[in-house]
Structures are given as structure tokens and as C-alpha cells.
């Protein structure tokens, strides 16, 4: 297969895999949540987490979708700089892969025109799939990570250009308010993505990277950001909103912060939420067109 055929094949396969197979780090976090609720004697929260874990098992056994929302396809692609490839062709093959997954599996299509609400029936359209292109110096491989972003959690997206004087405290307050405001709608326990700094669009993109593409258990390499992650996780879980907003100690499975430098008079904070399913799937394409699926 040519490298482009492999990209198309991987895009199709990743869309379906992401909807069926919950990543190991998310499963482990749900198990920890279940134990925490058991220990705290929160019967309702325990019941909800138990059902979530049971549901993941059923999806494994029946080889079926975990949740009915097939989402909007989002890809993060890292192209090795030692490869000589056509970026436009890569984008077009990712799109075709999504269309094939939708038609061949078949997956429910969600894409509509924002004004006419006319459906495209393909899970693709203008600007969709969302493709975040990046580069990895020195390798001759292409890494593709796919996240089908569900509407319940994506609808809970927030951006605020705080004042620099609001500082860290203002950031923490805003994030907690967003979680409170979202309540049960993003299917908690959530993975909370926070993007700090940059311009407004950069902050939103960082929040998406944080919610959808970071592994649970990872911390931001910057000690200040890592500290903020820990403090926010503690605060969010102390709200007691709990799984599905029905009360409990596990409102978030993780809080991930990503940041960029910003203007001296900016303090942008973006929040993007991923639901408990934390769906993502990864493949690496080698120069000869070989595809390796899996977390690492």
C-alpha cells in the first residue's frame, strides 16, 4: 500500500476502533473512581460507575459501539520531517477514511450545515474532520491519533479572556464555575481540558489537546502547570457533583492543563470537556506504508 492508502485505511479503522475500544488509561481511571466511591459509601455514584464499566465490557464482548454518539472526527497528525509527503493528500485521505467508516460500518452521521442544518450524511464536510497537523523532527513516520468528539461534552466548551490581575485564582474559579455550569450534561466523570495563554484560538486548541489527546496519569512537564492540574482536580472533585451529576467524589477522572505564552495584557482560559468514554485511538504509519495500531 502507498503511504496515502495506509493513511486512508488507518483513518477509517481508527474512527471505528475509537468508538469501540476505550483506552487502557481511561479504564484504569474508571476503576479507581469505582473503588473511591465504594470506600466513601456513595451508593448511587458506585452504581453509575459500575454501569459504565459494565457497558465497556459489553461493548468489548459484543464488538459494538460504547456510546451511540459517533461524534465529530478530530485527528492529531504528527508528520516526521524525514518524510517527503504531500500534506494536502494526507488531509484528503483522512476525510475519505471518515466517509468510508461512516458508509461501510455504518456509523451514524452527525454533520450538518450550521445555518441550514442540512445533513451531509458522511460525518465530514467543510472543515470536518478537524485536523491538527504537527511535525516530529527526524523521524520518517506519521503518527495519527483520532478522537470522535461527542456532542454532550463538546457543547460544554468555554472561553474567557480574564484580566491578568485575576491571576491564578481567577483561572481556578473560572474552571470550577464551568464544571458546575456543565452539571450532568457532559456525562461525568469527565476529563477536563484547560488551555491557558496564547491568543483565544490557541487557548481553545490547547484545551482540546488537554481533554482529548493526553493520557490520564500524565502531568504537564511544567511544574507550575502540573501543580495547577492537581489543585483543580481536587477542587472539582470536592464539588460533589459526581458521576452523571447524581452526587459523589468522582466528577473528573483527570484535569489536564496545556499552556502557551501570552500577551502581557492577556489571561485567556479555555475549557474543553471530554466525557467518561475518553475515546481516542492511535496508529503509526511507516514510510513503507506499514500500519501499527496501539497506544505506543
Amino acid at each position, binding site marked *: 500500500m502507498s503511504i496515502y492508502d495506509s493513511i486512508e485505511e488507518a483513518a477509517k479503522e481508527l474512527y471505528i476502533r475509537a468508538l469501540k475500544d476505550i483506552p487502557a488509561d481511561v479504564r484504569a481511571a474508571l476503576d479507581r473512581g469505582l473503588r473511591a466511591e465504594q470506600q466513601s459509601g456513595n451508593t448511587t455514584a458506585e452504581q453509575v460507575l459500575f454501569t459504565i464499566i459494565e457497558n465497556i465490557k459489553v461493548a468489548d464482548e459484543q464488538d459494538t459501539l460504547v456510546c451511540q454518539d459517533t461524534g465529530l472526527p478530530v485527528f492529531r497528525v504528527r508528520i516526521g520531517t524525514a518524510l517527503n509527503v504531500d500534506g494536502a493528500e494526507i488531509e484528503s485521505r483522512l476525510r475519505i477514511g471518515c466517509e468510508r467508516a461512516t458508509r461501510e460500518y455504518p456509523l451514524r452521521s452527525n454533520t450538518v450545515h450550521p445555518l441550514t442544518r442540512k445533513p451531509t450524511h458522511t460525518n465530514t464536510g467543510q472543515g470536518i474532520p478537524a485536523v491538527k497537523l504537527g511535525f516530529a523532527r527526524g523521524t520518517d513516520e506519521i503518527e495519527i491519533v483520532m478522537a470522535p468528539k461527542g456532542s454532550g461534552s463538546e457543547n460544554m466548551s468555554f472561553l474567557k479572556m480574564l484580566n491578568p490581575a485575576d491571576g491564578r485564582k481567577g483561572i481556578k474559579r473560572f474552571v470550577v464555575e464551568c464544571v458546575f455550569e456543565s452539571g450532568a450534561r457532559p456525562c461525568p466523570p469527565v476529563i477536563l481540558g484547560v488551555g491557558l495563554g496564547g491568543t483565544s484560538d490557541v487557548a481553545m486548541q490547547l484545551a482540546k489537546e488537554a481533554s482529548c489527546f493526553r493520557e490520564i496519569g500524565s502531568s504537564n512537564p511544567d511544574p507550575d502547570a502540573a501543580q495547577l492540574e492537581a489543585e483543580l482536580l481536587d477542587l472539582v472533585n470536592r464539588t460533589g*457533583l459526581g458521576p452523571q451529576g447524581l452526587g459523589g467524589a468522582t466528577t473528573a477522572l483527570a484535569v489536564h492543563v496545556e499552556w502557551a505564552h501570552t500577551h502581557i495584557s492577556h489571561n485567556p482560559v479555555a475549557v474543553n470537556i471530554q466525557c467518561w468514554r475518553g475515546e481516542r485511538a492511535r496508529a503509526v504509519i511507516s514510510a513503507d506504508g506499514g500500519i501499527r495500531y496501539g497506544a505506543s
Partner: protein
Amino acid sequence: MAHHKLETPLTEDAVRALRLEDTVSITGIIFGIRDATQIRIFDQGIAPPCDLSGGVCLHTAPGVRKLADGRYEKLSIGTTTSTRMDRFTEPLMEQYGVRAIVGKGGLLAGSVRAMQRLGGVYLAITGGAAALETLQIEEITDVWWEDLMPECLWRFRVRDFGPLIVAIDAHGNSLFDRVKAEAAARIREFSFD
């Protein structure tokens, strides 16, 4: 917190016996409805072509495949957020005798009062747990208003559908409201330092 195994149609007594945070599983018939279904019933004034009294309504737009004989095979049936459809709850109960709504995210104060007055409950399903839900729906027995696909009026036969959590009871209590009020009080105490 008791567990109740209920069979449809539900009686007012069975519904009034449920307490907040009790769990419920349902065997029998449930109806699938969504925004467009209820817009047809209430905004366009077209009565549903089936008997909903004592009924259980699930907020869903199922993923299905149409078979050669015109019947539908279930692919992935999940639950959508109920809050959007809040305004239909009271008339569903009052005009058509619906006794339970199954959904995610909860309903607002007007529906809580209506459930108290008319004898209804809101049963929270675990949002996103469609694999399990699809398994527990044994069969799609009927579908009306196919032009609204997938937001038609669906009739499902279910066995041990659940566990569902009583999140709004027939006595004016909402678990969502209680949890939110408690969370708001805790947040007021946060220093954010």
C-alpha cells in the same frame, strides 16, 4: 435505597412508591421519543398513534438499520440530554398518561412539580452507556412517523432495562437539584488560593 423491578404499564401507586436514589429496572414496553417527536405531538397537535398511558418514555434517537421486510434492527441505542425537552414533560403526563421519563441530565423545576402533581418519575440512565442499553432492548416492535427518522416514535420491548436511578420522584424531590445546591454551597466555601 431499594431496588424495584417494574413491569409496564406503570400504575400511579408503583410510581409514587419510588424514592430518590432508589434503583429501578423495567421489563415490558418503553417508547423512544425525542425533540421532533414531541414537536409533532404538541406543537403540531398530532396525537400519538399508540396508547402511552402508564407508559415509560426514553429520550433517544436510535441508530438502526432497516431490514428488507421493513422492520428495524437495532444498531446502537443510547440516551440524549432531557433538559432540551423539558417543556413536553407535563403535557405528556397530563394528556397521555405517561408515568416515567428515562433520560440523562435531568429536568427542570416545572417538571418536578408536574411529576408531584400527576404521579410521575424521572429515571436517570447512565449517559453514554449505549452498548448495555442496546443489549437490554430486546426488539424494536413498532415505529411511527418514519419521516422524522431517527426522531420517530419508537416502541421497544425491554427486559431488565436498567439499573435506572430515581432522580426526580413523585413527591417534589430532584436529586439533580439537591446535588447542585450542595455543590454550590461547597464552591462558595472554596478559597481558590
